[in-house]
Each structure stands twice: as structure tokens, then as C-alpha cells.
């Protein structure tokens, strides 16, 4: 059984800014009623520690221990919203390409672009897919745009041309960004207008999952990734969540993802794979369903790009 983690990031403040985790610290502090500066400092330090694997060496070691064959590295274009130089994105693409070379056959990379970059952004995406060997597009609507905005049409046309899936973030994120455009229904118009593009709703298997399940059931080109399930697993509610997807007949639209390195404080990659496989031993899912979730479905929706990658090995 091939295991593909469809949702991860390179752990580095270069790609996941410190401000992102600082927002998480704010939330933990508020939700837990933390009052000590020392506690805040300890949590900040832990988040800095887990966001420090810029060449993915520790990540590959954990993938090996977990039996994960490959993982999708998602680039997020935070530069536009934080007002940083555009050139930096090209450098970030180049560094991700170096990681692909450093760990041959282990990673698939999705280009990240903020559509407000206009023509330059469209060109950046095409460079990513054509020249850097990337296989899909990552969108982060909390940066302030709708995934169904017409300005994204040229991007989706390129994705259709390259048979490149689009993975769009769903659900809340760090509190400095907007949650307005991060609901499942936001993707509906784009999915309708571009039926040949496969849309993966990031985290939507575990957040806003009821609304997302309706989209997955009625839009053939909409899939849900499970990353973020770790919170449900910690609450002992993961089985219930997966039963929901099975009962709604969308289990073959569900993809395994972990969002590495975000949830490293809650467990390692091996632990998350075990959580999934346990669903088979507990009689909730069949071997075939699990095989699809862990990699089969992702491979089928990636079509040419992933087939080429498999062939190259």
C-alpha cells in the first residue's frame, strides 16, 4: 500500500513565518486562560523548535518511520499579504526544487501564488509547473481572496492544461488573517466552471466537514483532505469523523494529509498513520477504502504529473 501525505509544508520560518505561529500562541493563551509570560515563552519556543527542518531531513526520517512513501510540499504565498518582495517567491520556488532533488522521489511540490499578483503570478505558476517540476497549485484564501474570484481563471486554465490539482485552504487559521474566504462553499463556483480541474479542500475532512461533504458528494472534481484531524484524534473523536464520511458515501473522496509540521507537538508522523490504519482493524473501513485514502485516490486525481513522476523513478 503506497502512502502519500497530500498536505505538508517545509518546516522553516522562511516558508511558515513566525507571525503565523505567534497567532497560534495568542489563541492557546486565550483559550486556555494562560496568564504567565513564562508559559507564553515556552509555547513560542516549542513552535520555533518544530518549525526548523528547512531541508526536510527530519521529515523524511519521520516519513520512513511511518511508512509514508511521499508527501506533497505546499508553498504558500504569504509575501503578497505581508508586503514582501515578489522576487522572494522565485527564490522560495528554487529552494523547494532543491529539496525535491535532495530527496529524490519523496516529495511532490505544489506552487503557491496569490492571484492579486496578476499576470506576473500566472507566469510564476507556469514556471513552477513547467520548469521547476511542480505538480499542482496551492491557494491560501485567508490571505484575502475568494478561490472563485474571476482573477483566478487564468490560473485554473493553466491547471487544466497541466492536469494539475488545486489545493485550497479551508477553515480558520492564524488570527491575523481573514477567515471570510475559507469556507467550503467558496470553492463551488470555481469547481463548477472548471470541471476538468480537481480541487482538494485542505483540512475540509476535519473542519467545516458537513458543508464540505455536500460539495464532495455532488461535485465530481472536489476532494477533501483530512489534515487537522489530529485535534479530533486527541479528543477521541476521529473514528466518529470517519464514520460520518463513510455514511455520506464520500469515503473515496477523502485524502490522507498531516499538515506537517503544524501538529508536531501532538504527535509524530508514525502516530498519525497508525490512527488511520486502526480504522481498518476496528472494522470502520475496509482495506480497499484505506488504500484509497492513504494514496490511491490522490494518485488518480493527479493523473499525468504524478504518473510521470512515478515513471521517472
Amino acid at each position, binding site marked *: 500500500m503506497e502512502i502519500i501525505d497530500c498536505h505538508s509544508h517545509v518546516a522553516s520560518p522562511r516558508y511558515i513565518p513566525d507571525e503565523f505561529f505567534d497567532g497560534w500562541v495568542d489563541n492557546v493563551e486565550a483559550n*486556555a486562560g494562560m496568564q504567565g509570560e513564562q508559559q507564553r515563552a515556552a509555547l513560542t519556543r516549542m513552535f520555533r523548535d518544530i518549525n526548523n527542518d528547512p531541508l526536510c531531513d527530519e521529515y523524511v526520517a519521520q516519513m520512513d518511520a511511518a511508512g509514508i512513501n511521499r508527501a506533497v510540499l505546499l508553498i504558500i504565498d504569504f509575501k503578497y499579504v505581508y508586503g514582501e518582495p515578489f522576487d522572494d517567491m522565485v527564490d522560495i520556488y528554487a529552494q523547494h526544487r532543491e529539496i525535491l532533488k535532495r530527496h529524490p522521489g519523496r516529495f511532490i511540490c505544489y506552487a503557491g501564488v496569490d492571484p492579486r499578483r496578476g499576470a506576473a503570478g500566472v507566469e510564476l505558476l507556469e514556471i513552477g509547473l513547467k520548469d521547476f517540476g511542480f505538480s499542482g497549485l496551492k491557494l491560501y484564501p485567508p490571505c484575502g481572496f475568494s478561490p472563485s474570484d474571476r482573477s483566478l481563471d487564468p490560473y485554473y486554465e493553466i491547471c487544466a492544461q497541466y492536469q494539475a490539482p488545486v489545493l485550497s485552504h479551508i477553515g480558520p487559521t492564524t488570527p491575523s488573517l481573514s477567515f471570510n474566504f475559507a469556507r467550503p462553499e467558496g470553492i463551488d463556483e470555481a469547481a463548477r466552471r472548471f470541471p476538468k480541474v480537481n480541487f482538494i479542500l485542505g483540512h475540509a475532512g476535519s473542519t467545516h466537514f458537513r458543508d464540505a461533504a455536500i460539495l464532495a458528494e455532488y461535485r465530481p472534481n472536489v476532494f477533501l483532505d483530512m489534515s487537522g484531524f489530529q485535534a479530533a484524534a486527541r479528543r477521541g473523536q476521529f473514528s466518529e469523523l470517519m464514520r460520518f464520511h463513510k455514511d455520506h458515501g464520500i469515503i473515496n473522496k477523502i485524502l490522507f494529509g498531516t499538515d506537517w509540521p503544524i501538529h508536531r*507537538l501532538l504527535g509524530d508522523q508514525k502516530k498519525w498513520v497508525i490512527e488511520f490504519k486502526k480504522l481498518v482493524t476496528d472494522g470502520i473501513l475496509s482495506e480497499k477504502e484505506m488504500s484509497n485514502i492513504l494514496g490511491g485516490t490522490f494518485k488518480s486525481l493527479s493523473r499525468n504529473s504524478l504518473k510521470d513522476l512515478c515513471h521517472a523513478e
Partner: protein
Amino acid sequence: MQSKNSVIIEIVKDQLDDSTKTINLDTRFDVINLDSLKFMLLLINLQDEKYNFSVDLNRIGSVETVKDLTDIVSYAS
């Protein structure tokens, strides 16, 4: 002076809603159902200066029981 293990057991107990629950080294975390917020608070509290502990976060996935937790906690040098 309390032993490392008994201090850790006390820190785990502090995260429980039910203070009457018995916690020992064999207690499994999936049984006491610490949610992600409480689990993070547990890690934070383990690093309180007064204990002088260090937590090996790379081994956090191996933690199933309180004993496993004690194995990844050491005295900071």
C-alpha cells in the same frame, strides 16, 4: 524532594477535569482524553523553570502512557 516521575504525574493530574482520577505510570493518555489544548498545556507546564525539565519533542509521537512521557523528559543541563 519529589522524584521526576511523581512530579510529572502531578503535572498530568493538573490537566484533568476530574481531580479524583488516579494517575500512575501505566495510565494511557487515550483513556484520560487530554484534548490538543490540554496536551499543549501539559508540554508547556513540563517546561516550567521550577522543574528544570527538558522535553524531547521529536519523540512526542511515542507517548502513549505516562511512563512514555517520563522517558522523553529529562533534567535540563
